[in-house]
């Protein structure tokens, strides 16, 4: 079988599993293959068991799956954990020096034990290059042109020690490649061949979202390190000097969102990347943005809670939390992208929505979407479609023409009051987290309070005009309709393909703009459905509950996952059977 291949590289933290895995995924992408790669690591710097799951195919895919053809095991633990996942005819690569108990290898799975350390040593390498050897072996067994692996090694090590590191790693990769090819390739039936295809990007949700934010005019980002949100701050900090972005690693998450809101109040598009725990600290300040109508974008990259939970794993458990966080009622917008395209799109859209409706906007992602690498056409990051819309921001001419005291919070039909960044003599005002009048001054009058509350909440209704309705995939008259939001998109699409092979037609309602809730659009689709099945990565079925609350429709079956691992298509199909 050619170009339908999944491998797992497993080892301890510190053995370079993630960097090597990502490198090999890049080699496969450059070979013209479609790639979906998922890192799985423990919350530690050394030891433990990390693995990197890579699926590569000749036709488009939406996620990883559980069919594994090759396990590249750097440790005995890796063999123990993954050998059982390998299909018949697949194989397990390990170092014979590990003195492995052969019974760990299931029947029908090939034993690719080899003197790995000796091969590396013989090529002049060190134990630190065992990971590099594994990529050479994968190429050797699958028949992938080693040139793609070599290219990635050059990219990763090229500049280190004047090229000496690259040379050493290349030698190791070649030696390991040749050994695997000469000893085992002939009896390994799963092959990879380069395909002549247009160049694709290999990218995860976090960088796609960061690029979206940059394109959308984000010029300020503040945050406090927390997996899996902090890579957004790290990436933006790397771009900051060249693109004129102020980034600030603050003393805590409260300061992070306060600083962003300060920048927003001063007229700069500001974003805050975090995860659920960090956002927990930001909750009071979220209300400040709501009350004082200051735009701010919060990138909430979810991980499993409660509390520290599973720090390096995935969950969709914060939906209800972000919808309801902070005291009182105020408008907020919640976007939940499910694909790389949507991560980029929502990355820039969020800033328009925040300024247009002068309220906090969430982009709700998760560890799985943030860190899985996928091949996409370069056009998927559609910079040409980016629009910068600052809403009712007063132009210098409008400011010059202002008469009398400026009403920052003027009552309007849409709820949107024309806003001005500070610095113009005619638009001087103070705003307050206390209830205030149209000028921004503190005001406790009952009538004013009611009108101000209504004005703010009207913005949410006005915002409906800019919401993207949920998308339906698959035939409309299907037996089963899946309902999911955010990152469950990929595994659901794969599950649909598997069902189709079995002769079962299904379709899929994918909700991306979560709040204000697209009640009419959701109801329209679900009312006609024969069997509705929700798929979401949390314990209580938060989206299913929201659908019921907003439409009165109870989905027929709910499939939940809350073990910290991403959905696989097989997991969804097993869940479907249980009903």
């Amino acid at each position, binding site marked *: 079988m050619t170009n339908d291949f999944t491998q797992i590289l497993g080892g301890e933290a510190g053995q370079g599993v993630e960097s090597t895995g990502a490198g090999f995924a890049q080699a496969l992408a450059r070979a013209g293959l479609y790639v979906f790669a998922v890192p799985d690591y423990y919350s530690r710097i050394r030891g433990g068991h990390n693995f990197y799951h890579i699926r590569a195919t000749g036709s488009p895919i939406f996620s990883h799956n559980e069919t594994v053809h090759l396990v590249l095991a750097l440790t005995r633990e890796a063999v123990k954990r993954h050998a059982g996942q390998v299909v018949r005819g697949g194989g397990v690569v390990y170092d014979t020096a590990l003195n492995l108990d052969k019974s760990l290898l299931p029947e029908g799975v090939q034993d690719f034990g080899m003197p790995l350390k000796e091969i590396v040593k013989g090529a002049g390498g060190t134990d630190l290059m065992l990971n590099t050897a594994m990529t050479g072996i994968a190429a050797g067994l699958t028949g992938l042109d080693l040139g793609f692996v070599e290219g990635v090694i050059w990219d990763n090590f090229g500049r280190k020690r004047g090229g000496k590191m690259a040379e050493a790693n290349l030698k190791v990769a070649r030696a390991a490649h040749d050994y695997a090819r000469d000893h085992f390739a002939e009896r390994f039936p799963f092959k990879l061949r380069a395909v002549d295809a247009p160049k694709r990007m290999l990218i995860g949700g976090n960088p796609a979202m960061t690029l979206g934010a940059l394109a959308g005019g984000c010029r300020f980002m503040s945050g406090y390190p927390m997996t899996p949100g902090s890579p957004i701050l790290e990436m933006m900090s790397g771009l900051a000097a060249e693109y004129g972005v102020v980034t600030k690693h603050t*003393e805590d998450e409260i300061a992070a969102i*306060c600083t962003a809101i*300060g920048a927003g109040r001063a007229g700069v598009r500001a974003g805050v990347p975090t995860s659920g725990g960090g956002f927990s600290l930001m909750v009071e300040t979220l209300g400040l943005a709501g009350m004082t109508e200051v735009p701010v974008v919060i990138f909430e990259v979810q991980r499993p809670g409660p509390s520290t939970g599973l720090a390096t794993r995935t969950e969709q458990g914060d939906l209800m939390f972000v919808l309801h966080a902070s005291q009182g009622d105020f408008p907020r917008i919640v976007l939940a992208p499910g694909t790389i395209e949507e991560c980029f799109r929502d990355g820039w859209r969020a800033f328009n929505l925040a300024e247009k409706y002068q309220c906090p906007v969430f982009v709700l992602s998760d560890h799985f979407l943030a860190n899985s690498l996928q091949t996409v056409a370069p056009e998927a990051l559609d910079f040409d479609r980016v629009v910068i819309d600052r809403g009712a921001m007063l132009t210098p001419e409008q400011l010059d023409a202002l008469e009398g005291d400026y009403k920052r919070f003027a009552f309007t039909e849409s709820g949107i009051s024309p806003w001005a960044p*500070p610095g113009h003599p005619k638009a001087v005002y103070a705003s307050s987290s206390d209830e205030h009048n149209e000028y921004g001054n*503190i005001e406790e009058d009952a009538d004013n309070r009611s009108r101000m509350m209504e004005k703010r909440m009207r913005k949410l209704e006005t915002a409906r005009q800019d919401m993207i309705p949920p998308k339906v995939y698959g035939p409309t008259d299907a037996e089963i309709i899946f309902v999911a939001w955010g990152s469950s998109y990929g595994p659901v699409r794969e599950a649909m393909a598997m069902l189709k092979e079995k002769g079962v037609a299904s379709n899929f309602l994918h909700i991306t703009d979560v709040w204000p809730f697209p009640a009419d659009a959701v109801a329209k689709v679900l009312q006609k459905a024969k069997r509705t099945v929700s798929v979401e990565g949390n314990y209580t079925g938060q989206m299913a509950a929201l659908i019921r609350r907003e439409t009165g429709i109870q989905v027929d079956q709910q499939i939940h996952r809350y073990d910290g691992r991403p959905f696989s298509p097989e997991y969804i199909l097993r869940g479907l059977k249980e009903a």
Partner: protein
Amino acid sequence: MVTVKDYQNSVTPTWCPGCGNFGIWRALKMALAGLGLEPHKVMLVSGIGQSSKVPDYVRANGYMTLHGRAIPVATGVKLARPDLKVIVHSGDGDGYAEGLSHMMHAARRNIGIVHVAHNNQIYGLTKGQYSPTSASGTHSKTSPEGSIDRPVNPLMLALAAGATFVARAFSKNAKELSEILMAAIQHRGYALVDILQPCVTFNRVNTYEWYSERVYPAKGEAGYDPASFDWAVKTAQIWGDRIPVGILYQVESLPSYEEQVPALKAGPVGTRPLLPLPPDKVKTLKEAYM
């Protein structure tokens, strides 16, 4: 010419008659007008508390935020618009309890904001609980048997954190106070101005009389040397029968945080137009993933 009148709005303060806040309010407007700063070039940021109502009573850009959070909000304003003069008004509860860690970090960064702390050693807005600067043994609603906590010395904290401008003032002496505020506003980096301020309703100990008997201008003393860290540390600890006021520490040779931010070299990010990324940049950004 800018005058105090330019900073006056139509809102009547809700402070108790005789409140120390009036003196600070007056001195602030005198200082801003004295420096010839126009109201639209100033941003007053406050938290929550009686002191934090200042922006509501001044005609200038203002932002009344959350209890304890004025400094990080002001930091965001300053990093977005370093061309604005950013002045924080906090109280001793707001600034030295809830917001203490922010103050320490602002000081060590030397971010260019003036931190005006209205220090009346009591919580006013919540009606009379002891604060971080209340003396041990203070009887209040939350310490009816006398407080056990020892008070913080905010000046020492600021000095320890690396503040480059530390001053103490008395709210009754509006002229001296406004001079100190003018120096703080012109300072390069973070400036703490801790203002001793009587609370006429809830603090029956630290009254106008109590302070008037004790405060003395440090400047008039032999050995006055605000350039010396050691002298500042020594002087900041004097508290009791005599309380020194004035600028106790001032260093102008260190760059402020915002002066060193690469993205701000080309001017404030808040005044630059937002343009689409040029095609060559887009190409480079994408190629990093190919």
